[in-house]
């Protein structure tokens, strides 16, 4: 697919709600060439650290570069996979444990394309996008800087 996809706003303030996911799904029901949707959601875990339990993550980003990198990841994925639709949303600011901070939504005619693209895009986001996270710990609000593996 050689068409250009216009850059979209990826960052949303705070957690991504289940209702937002539902609304995104509903918008694709008029696209009757889609046979498979693969959705990835990243949820904040209450990991135990020596200082206490994680209560949330505070995300910040080099926003201009991050939006550009998201755009490049989108273009790259559209060129590698036969996708019909792709949407990426990432939280900025504080997301409490149990809430969703990443929503990657790909749609294609057939399931294997959707599976492959979903995993590929999530790995690209984890390694390439300049997003930073403080794991907030315990009631006193201590924190540890998070690092993707």
């Amino acid at each position, binding site marked *: 697919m050689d068409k250009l996809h216009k850059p979209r706003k990826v960052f949303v303030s705070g957690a991504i709600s289940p209702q937002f996911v539902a609304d995104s799904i509903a918008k694709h029901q008029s696209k009757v060439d889609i046979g498979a949707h693969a959705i990835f959601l990243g949820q904040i875990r209450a990991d135990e650290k020596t200082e206490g339990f994680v209560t949330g993550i505070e995300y910040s980003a080099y926003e201009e570069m991050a939006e550009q990198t998201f755009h490049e990841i989108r273009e790259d994925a559209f060129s590698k996979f036969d996708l019909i639709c792709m949407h990426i949303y990432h939280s900025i600011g504080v997301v409490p444990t149990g809430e969703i901070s990443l929503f990657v939504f790909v749609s294609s005619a057939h399931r294997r394309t959707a599976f492959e693209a979903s995993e590929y895009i999530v790995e690209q986001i984890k390694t390439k996008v300049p997003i930073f*996270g403080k794991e907030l710990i315990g009631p006193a609000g201590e924190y540890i*800087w998070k690092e993707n593996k």
Partner: protein
Amino acid sequence: MTINILYFGMLAEISQQAKESLSGKENMTVRDLKQQLCEKYPEMCERKFKVAVNQQIGDDTTIIPLSAEIALLPPFAGG
């Protein structure tokens, strides 16, 4: 020349500011800049970080152009 530097995450904590302007020599490389920063902020040298030059990740040999926007990026944590 003047170099405009953005600090993110723990690096902003070390420098105690989100951005600053330093003066550097022309045609300096990312390696040169790192040395200069190490002298100013010794704690920074103990941290892993990447350097973006005009929003592209550079390596030690990347030459810093005039009026470049430099960003010091600690490990990514998106997702």
